């Protein structure tokens, strides 16, 4: 579709050069060559897309190499990683990676960024970037536009931004210093308020905020960040996935086939899904579950108590292990449902976007970004987060071919390239455009 270049250092895509386009520097906390998180993937796809559209774009990302090594041959704190890409070391940052311990290294990075002479500096995180760097760059380049995409809620919640209570594991619906103190009793109210003051003061150096979901936008608004310069804009899934054809599912064949895509981690809800499946399969032995991203051994290492449920599920449950991200649409097309049973909010899950791109309906926990991106009874089903019985109910309901046919037919596709780029252009130009393809 677009001729996007793959390797580092190669100028991506077809060059078009309308002079009125702003030059954009995208700053990310990581590079997808080194880690596969959703934020850095979205950032890099944006860079590739803009560059592919002929914009003058650059990509500057953090990297943590073994033993704190510099990414450059001569020990400089940053290094060129292609024609318009740079990597910078974060060894000069404080341990929390929100601030620079070394003013010299921060200043060097600011000089690099300012020297790129971008019209727009678009950040995709502040962690491993530094709130002080943002402030210093804003002061160094008062003529440039400072934009940030907030993919997660680290600023709001000290618990890795997850907004889950540390002790009860309950979902947290509201940040207050007093509530945070009950999660972090070794802290003080003053320190928690200082943290908030720090985050807000740092974020206010941005002129525009982009959120990939209404859910996260609302969380930041409730937390205290003004919604005046906020836009909800879905992440762009990338030209490669957008180029793949979207097929209509065969409900009669696939309605009873479910799949999970993800890691067997604490909050992804695999420990909810497997017992729910074991319950459902006892009632309807025709259903099947594929687990992509984990082996049985890994799953049992995380959740030893699932042993019995796995045994009950028998050969109807298959652990498919790792998968290549490039294959994901094919894998999703091969099942009737993608199940996302996360017990935390999930701000704007890539898995949901991928399933929508594949045209596969979803069964999701009815909370947060999942509930927003999958509409109950329209293009998927909701169940009560953390409830295996309710998920079992949803699985059985979903296994009906007519249910699948009805919902699969209305699964919306993800945001397209033109719409995404157009929205960015409007944001960079300072146009008021609040909600662009939120879901």
């Amino acid at each position, binding site marked *: 579709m677009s001729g996007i270049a793959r390797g580092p250092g190669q100028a991506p895509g077809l060059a078009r050069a309308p002079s009125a386009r702003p030059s954009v520097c995208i700053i990310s906390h990581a590079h997808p060559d080194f880690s596969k998180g959703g934020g850095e993937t979205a950032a890099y796809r944006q860079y590739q897309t803009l560059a592919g559209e002929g914009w003058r774009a650059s990509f500057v990302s953090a990297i943590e190499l073994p033993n704190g090594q510099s990414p450059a041959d001569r020990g400089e704190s940053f290094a060129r990683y292609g024609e318009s890409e740079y990597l910078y070391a974060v060894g000069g940052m*404080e341990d929390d990676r929100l*601030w620079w311990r070394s*003013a010299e290294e921060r200043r060097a990075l600011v000089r690099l960024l300012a020297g790129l002479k971008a019209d727009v500096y678009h950040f995709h995180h502040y962690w491993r970037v530094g*709130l*002080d760097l943002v*402030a210093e760059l804003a*002061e160094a380049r008062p003529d440039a536009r400072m934009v940030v995409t907030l993919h997660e809620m680290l600023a709001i919640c000290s618990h890795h931004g997850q907004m889950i209570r540390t002790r009860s594991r309950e979902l947290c619906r509201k940040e207050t210093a007093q509530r945070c103190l009950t999660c972090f009793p070794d802290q003080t109210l*003053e*320190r928690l*308020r*200082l*943290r*908030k*003051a*720090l985050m*807000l*003061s*740092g974020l*206010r*150096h941005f002129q525009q905020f982009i959120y990939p979901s209404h859910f996260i936008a609302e969380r930041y608004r409730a937390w*205290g960040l*003004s919604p005046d310069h906020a836009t909800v804009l879905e992440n762009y899934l990338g030209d490669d996935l957008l180029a793949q054809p979207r097929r209509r599912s065969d409900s009669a064949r696939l309605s009873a086939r479910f799949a999970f895509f993800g890691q067997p981690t604490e909050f992804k809800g695999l420990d909810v899904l497997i017992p729910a499946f074991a319950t459902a399969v006892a009632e309807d032995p025709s259903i099947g579950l594929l687990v992509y991203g984990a082996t049985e051994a890994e799953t049992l290492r995380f959740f030893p108590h699932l042993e019995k449920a796995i045994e009950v599920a028998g050969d109807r449950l298959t652990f498919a292990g790792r998968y290549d991200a490039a294959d994901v649409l094919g894998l999703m097309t091969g099942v009737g449902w993608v199940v996302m049973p996360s017990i935390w909010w999930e701000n704007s899950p890539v898995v949901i976007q991928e399933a929508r791109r594949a045209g596969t309906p979803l069964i999701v926990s009815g909370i947060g970004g999942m509930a927003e991106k999958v509409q109950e009874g329209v293009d998927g089903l909701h169940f009560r987060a953390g409830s295996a019985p309710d998920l079992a109910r949803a699985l059985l309901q979903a296994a009906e071919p007519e249910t699948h046919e009805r919902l699969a037919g209305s699964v919306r596709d993800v945001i397209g390239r033109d719409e995404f780029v157009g929205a960015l252009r409007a944001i960079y130009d300072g146009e008021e455009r609040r909600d662009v393809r939120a879901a």
Partner: protein
Amino acid sequence: MYFEFGRSLQAGLDCAGDLTPEQGAIFGWMRHRVDETPELRVEGSPGEPLTILLRDLHPRLDVEQIEGTAVTGFSLIHEIPRHLRGRILILGTSGGPAGGQEVALDLLAYDLPADVQAMSMNRDWGASYQLLRASALDAGRIRTLYTEEGPAGIFAGWLDRLPRLAGTADLFLEFRDVRAAILPDGELVVSGGLNLADAPPRRMEAMGCAVVRAPGGASAVVPLVAESYAPLEGGFVLGGIVAAPPDSTIEVVVQLRRGDRAWWFLAEVSPAPLPDFLSALSLPRTELSAPDAAALQAWLRDALSERSRALQGYLSGMSLSGSPAEPGGTALLFGVNDEYAARVLALLAPDLETRFSRIVLSGAAAGRAAAALLRRGAMEVVVEGDAEGALAVAARGSGTVAPIDTAALVDAAIEGNPGRLTANALRAESLPWIAGLHAVAGTGTMEATMGRVVAMMAGVDASALPMPAQRPDPLGGLLSEHLRGLWEMVPVTGSPR
């Protein structure tokens, strides 16, 4: 030297010497009938009485008491007129059947010890204390404290021999948890619990006088102003006030008497914040009997009431009215103890620079905060190790000073309204009021005091602000009530949040 004047009157003379060319001292004792009162005077020659500057009588437990008699020690300080040739001590008694008899001793006729200071080192400590105290009360006339022997006069050697308490001690003599504390305005307390098993029920009497060593070497022994003590059986609390130059070293010569037991010691008082001082007044680690608790409560209530009355005028006259800061003034950021506070300051630096020309910082993270501001080079930055120092530096400027605590900084940052930091500023010349307020009503550290002032300028009611935790009994209640009452006297105003 022993003199016997019949069965009903004997005397011992320990010493007769000169304090100065103008004053002499005679120390000794008389044994007399128990129903008689000793009479003493000194004459230059028969019929030529010398002015007695001090006639101090005290018990002499070291001299044998014969049935029907009493032994009274004495210290006489008398004038020595010029050209005085003789010195005659007239001893007599009044009252009783033999009252009125007198005998004369020509002091120059005997080889009596004349070294008053040497004798003072070896006298009964009660006698020395009593003379010291009397001398302090009338130091203008009595020269015992001003001999050529230097500071503390004839008492210097004796004072050196006294047991010495430095500030606090878990165990000291027969006492436990002994504390000696002083506030910047000179209020002091020496207290402790009795650590004596099976002591008979007697109430402790406490008194003291202070040895003040001013910077530069000048010394003086002075009485305690407003001296009082709690009449307890199981401990002692002695309070008073000493007027002393700043940075003086102050020791209290303490006498405690409980029945026939007595203790003397020298307590070096340590500067203390008010809560520690108040704590020392209430014997927090001493298990008090019910009568003692009641007695201490009554005494403490009176002492604190008196303290409140004494401070009323001072506190209510303070000028602590916040008004908007003038451009180019000083920001006084105290309590910058958290790394996050330093970061917030760095992020707000451009806003601060448009509003202030100088920033004074104190706290554990002040250095970090200052580094970021100094790198920018847009305003004068001063770092002080503590809030006291920061306050003093800020007061040396001119114009307005906006005191800013972490809570105010946080509020301004969270609201995105740095202008709020300028809402309540004080004239630089008003800042010493805060130091004064802290001295007499501080609830903890200077940071805490300044934080209270900032909060009150922002409209927080004094009664809503926290007090340091007190002991959970009526004594603790009195202390809290006292502190709260003091703060309610202070007319702090400003622009509410």
